């Protein structure tokens, strides 16, 4: 029941948005829908914690701890973003940006808004489907769905640049996903011999996971490579990361935040599902080596771009490349510690990243630019709340204690050591150091300094409270993780490690 609710509510909210005329209504519908989704997600978590995996329509939908975690995170992110979106778009409308976009699109400002408020639920629906679908084919379909929905988000403003970004996103994403599909097909093929009779349910993960040991190994190897590249593209792992800076810097802030957290989680979720199969079939070794390689590569690629970065929206994109690198690395390190580290990191990332985007959004709307060069610094004077939050979340996102990322990175490091990857650990840490330095240099220059005498910002309640509230959550996360959440994560770890 909950599963259906999770899917239907957003699916219903989308067409509803098309019917509504007034902005306020749109906002209300969105908020309500995502609030319900969040509540349902909570319910799902409760159920899963109480009585193990839930499944529906003889295993067409299937939710274990891992899916529950992803559902929860996606729901949380979408709810927070919908709150922020209200303030964000009101400001956009006031400052006439939407009217510009509308000229390009040849439609009215409210239509523009409606477009967003209709797309967002669709995106959320796709994300939920990713997490809940048992059938790997459907999983793929859903991930493709997130891409299609978010392409429109990227081209939202209809500028030349946003078209360019959308094109790159669509094409690269398309190629990536077709690789993922190929991988899925090959997985099916490698399972085909082993499954025989129940071949009809042959793409259901729960079924595959049971018999993964007998799959055809070479095929599985090829399949995993393709899957890694495919979902890796979606997760923005180097060298498939190139679409990210473009897409993130063009999409409206709430959308970008969704891309950077929810969609990223979905992609990684798919990766993890297949990782489980491959490690059952081929043993963890094969997957680990590739994952570690790509993880470190992504971190390494992100570093120089973060160090010399002119545009703070793109800075965020590279940070998310860095983070997905970290998570993939953690998956590669493997073992209970590594997986725990990865899932913790995913959780913290979903909580922290939106705040970073929101702060950047506030700053951008305040200065009407996303270039460091144009900003005179000293934002703390004109927008104390956002400024402080921005500094804080910068520290948080670069993994400095006492903020939560430190826990996950500490765990990942331990995983690395227990895997005996001392040198890799050194690389890992030094990349973290460099990212920290780069970030801090940029953000302090932005936030601190003499008062440039800008008008006072931080007035819109929606923006203020979403930032403040999320900031509180981030701080608290550093010192306290709700016990059920941790139990959930451990359950997920159990699924990945033990099966």
């Amino acid at each position, binding site marked *: 029941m909950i599963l259906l609710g999770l899917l239907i509510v957003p699916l219903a909210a989308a067409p509803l948005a098309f019917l509504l005329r007034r902005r306020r209504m749109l906002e209300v519908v969105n908020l309500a829908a995502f609030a319900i989704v969040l509540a349902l997600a909570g319910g799902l978590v409760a159920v899963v914690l109480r009585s193990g995996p839930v499944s529906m329509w003889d295993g067409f939908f299937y939710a274990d701890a891992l899916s529950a975690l992803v559902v929860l995170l996606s729901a949380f992110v979408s709810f927070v973003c919908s709150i922020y979106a209200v303030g964000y778009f009101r400001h956009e409308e006031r400052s006439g940006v939407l009217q510009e976009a509308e000229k390009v699109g040849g439609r009215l400002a409210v239509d523009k808004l409606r477009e967003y408020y209709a797309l967002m639920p669709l995106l959320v629906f796709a994300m939920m489907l990713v997490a809940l679908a048992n059938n790997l084919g459907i999983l793929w379909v859903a991930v493709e769905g997130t891409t299609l929905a978010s392409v429109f988000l990227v081209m939202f403003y209809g500028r030349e640049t946003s078209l360019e970004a959308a094109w790159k996103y669509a094409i*690269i994403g398309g190629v990536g996903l077709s690789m993922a599909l190929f991988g899925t097909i090959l997985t099916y093929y490698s399972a085909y011999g082993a499954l025989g009779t129940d071949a009809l349910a042959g793409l259901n993960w729960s079924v595959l996971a049971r018999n993964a040991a007998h799959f055809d190994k070479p095929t599985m190897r090829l399949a995993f490579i393709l899957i890694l590249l495919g979902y890796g593209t979606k997760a923005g792992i180097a060298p498939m990361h190139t679409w990210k800076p473009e897409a993130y810097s063009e999409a409206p802030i709430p959308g970008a935040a969704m891309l950077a957290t929810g969609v990223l989680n979905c992609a990684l979720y798919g990766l993890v599902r297949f990782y489980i199969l491959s490690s059952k079939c081929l043993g963890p070794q094969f997957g680990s080596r590739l994952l570690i390689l790509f993880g470190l590569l992504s971190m390494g690629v992100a570093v120089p771009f973060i160090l010399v970065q002119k545009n703070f929206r793109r800075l965020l994109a590279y940070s998310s490349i860095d983070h997905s690198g970290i998570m993939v690395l953690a998956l590669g390190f493997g073992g209970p510690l590594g997986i725990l580290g990865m899932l913790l990191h995913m959780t913290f990332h979903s909580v922290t990243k939106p705040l970073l985007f929101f702060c950047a959004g506030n700053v951008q709307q305040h200065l009407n630019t996303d270039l460091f060069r144009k900003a005179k610094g000293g934002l703390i004077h004109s927008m104390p709340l956002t400024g402080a939050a921005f500094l804080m979340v910068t520290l948080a996102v670069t993994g400095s204690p006492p903020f939560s990322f*430190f826990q996950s990175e500490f765990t990942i490091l331990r995983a690395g050591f227990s895997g005996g990857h001392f040198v890799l650990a050194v690389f890992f840490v030094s990349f973290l150091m460099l990212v920290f330095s780069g970030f801090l240099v940029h953000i302090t220059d932005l936030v601190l300094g003499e008062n440039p005498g800008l008008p006072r910002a931080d007035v819109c309640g929606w923006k203020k409270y979403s930032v403040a509230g999320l900031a509180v959550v981030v701080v608290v996360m550093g010192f306290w993780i709700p016990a059920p959440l941790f139990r959930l994560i451990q359950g997920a770890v159990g699924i990945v490690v033990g099966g």
Partner: protein
Amino acid sequence: MLPLGMIFALSIAAYLAGAFASLACWRKPALARYICCSAALAGAGLGGLAAVLGILRGAPVAWSVPSGIPLFAYSFSYDALAGFFNLALAIPVVAVSIYSFGYLKELEGKRNIGFFGFLFHLLLLSLTIAFTAANAFLFLISWEVMALAAYGLVTFYHEDRETRRAGLLYVIMAHIDAGCLLLGFGLLIQASGSAEFASFHKAAMQLSSSQQTAAFVLFFLGFGIKAGVIPFHIWLPAAHPVAPSNVSALLSGIVIKTGIYGMTRIFLDSLGGVPSWAGLLVLIVGVVSAVLGVLYALMEHDLKRLLAYHSIENIGIILMGLGAGLIFRVAGHPMLAAVALVAAMFHTLNHAIFKSLLFLGAGSVLHSTGTRNMEEMGGLIRPMPVTAFCFLIGAVAISGLPPLNGFVSEWLTYQTLLAGFGAIPGLTRILFPLAGSMLALTGALAAACFVKAFAITFLALPRGAESRNAHEAPRTMLIGMGWLTLACAALGLGVTWFLPLFDAMTEQLLGQQVSAHLVTGHGLVLSAGMRTSGTVSPMVIAVGLVVLMLPAALLVAVGVRRFGRKRGPVWDCGLPGLSAENEYTATAFSKALRMIFSVLYKPRREIQAVFDVSPYFPKEIRFESGIEPTFEKRLYAPLQEFIFRFSSKMRTIQAGSIHAYLAYIFVTLVLLLLFGVRK
């Protein structure tokens, strides 16, 4: 032991309360100020009490507080070492918090005192926890919180560009050292399977030699950066001066000591001793830091930068003792090691005290003149006599002159080094007396430097308008300084009474109690322990000085009575009309040394004469001189240069061409198909 735990918890609570209370009422500056200072005072008082209890108790007390994070527990262990460092924390903090009552007053309305209080208390809290953490995770957290809080305080005047740069340099270096520690602890945790310090000792034994080397190097890097040893010192003279002076006092006084704490804790306790080459490395780094530190200090005429460089020097002196101790321990002389440890720790405590004192003094000078540049000061002893006196005491103490505390700890260090010559076989023994002579050089140079610092700041005629109409600091500030002045005197004269405080620590770390050996002559005389039988008694020296001065005073008094004494203009070899312009300046004072050590300083000077008719009759002359910041220029600048050039090159990857982007993926795919598929 309940009371200890209680008191400790209370002091932590005081800091926490102070942090949030002063943040809460940031709109009412005066209230925030009172809350901040009094909470700090309370916390420090309780902390000091707890420290004394902990030291006297000896045997460690451990608590474990369940943390909200299921992965880790916050476990504390209050042993003698922790107690000692908490004491070294408490004494200056008491002074600083009293001082701040007056010092922060001028900031009211100008800056957000509430936020200052928050960071200030966060710093104190993290320091306390860092000294008592028994768990790598908790330690690292407090370590980093400390760095961040300090960063916030350093950049408190963030409008100033120099300040921001300094802060960044500081926090980045701090983060790098945290990274080194992270790796180091990673090794130990991997070996022991737990993050508790207690478990490391056994685990360290199982580490392979290469791992042990790696661990040592990582920890030495980490703690060395924090302590500001050369060549990782560049952040220190940048960051400490720009902070508010009461904070600088803490930064130089105690924050850098966390590095010393870490080395002691890890090298002696967790790793259970390090190979002798490592000890030697520590010793040599100590010597280098001491000598170079003081040499750079001599060239400064920014009062607070000068003091900052002296922190480097004193860290060097501490490391000499510590290094010697490490070597002795490996060589199987626990007793000597204990003496060396006492020397190092005692100097740590002393430096914490007199360096805070000096920074507070500099603070009140800054407070009344508004400048850090000594060339604009002078004659301040008349408007601000008390500050001058306190600063003088601090100067005498830090120059290691008898009978104050600086002398005592340096004396112990000398004795340790001398003993090393006898105790260590082989050629390395030569290093000990050589180190001793370098210590002598350091001491003498420090004396020279503080003659300059004190005289140029407080004596003769004022060189600038600010110092001409300077005023004495408010009473609270004077009280703060007075407290530390007393401490300097007490620890110097009464050293023999304080030595037993070290027994518990040496017992815990080296299984030796030395105070009995170090005290003779009816508890008045400090002796060098076993091998070399040197003795000294600061108390007697002080008394002797007074006694011997009396007859002289008598002579003078008689002379004055009969033949009179009058004040007259300065004779100055008969040159009339002395004015501030032809006074000796700080630059001039250090000229001789600048030329003697020009190899090191690479001094540059430029003289521009503005003249009408002929260059021989200049209207005005602009003189500018400076020295080359060797490490910044030769070591760090090129590194940064390289990183940034490389990064800029990398940016061509993201050149915007979708074909290139697709090509990356395509190539990756092909490569993986070629190499990935086969086993």
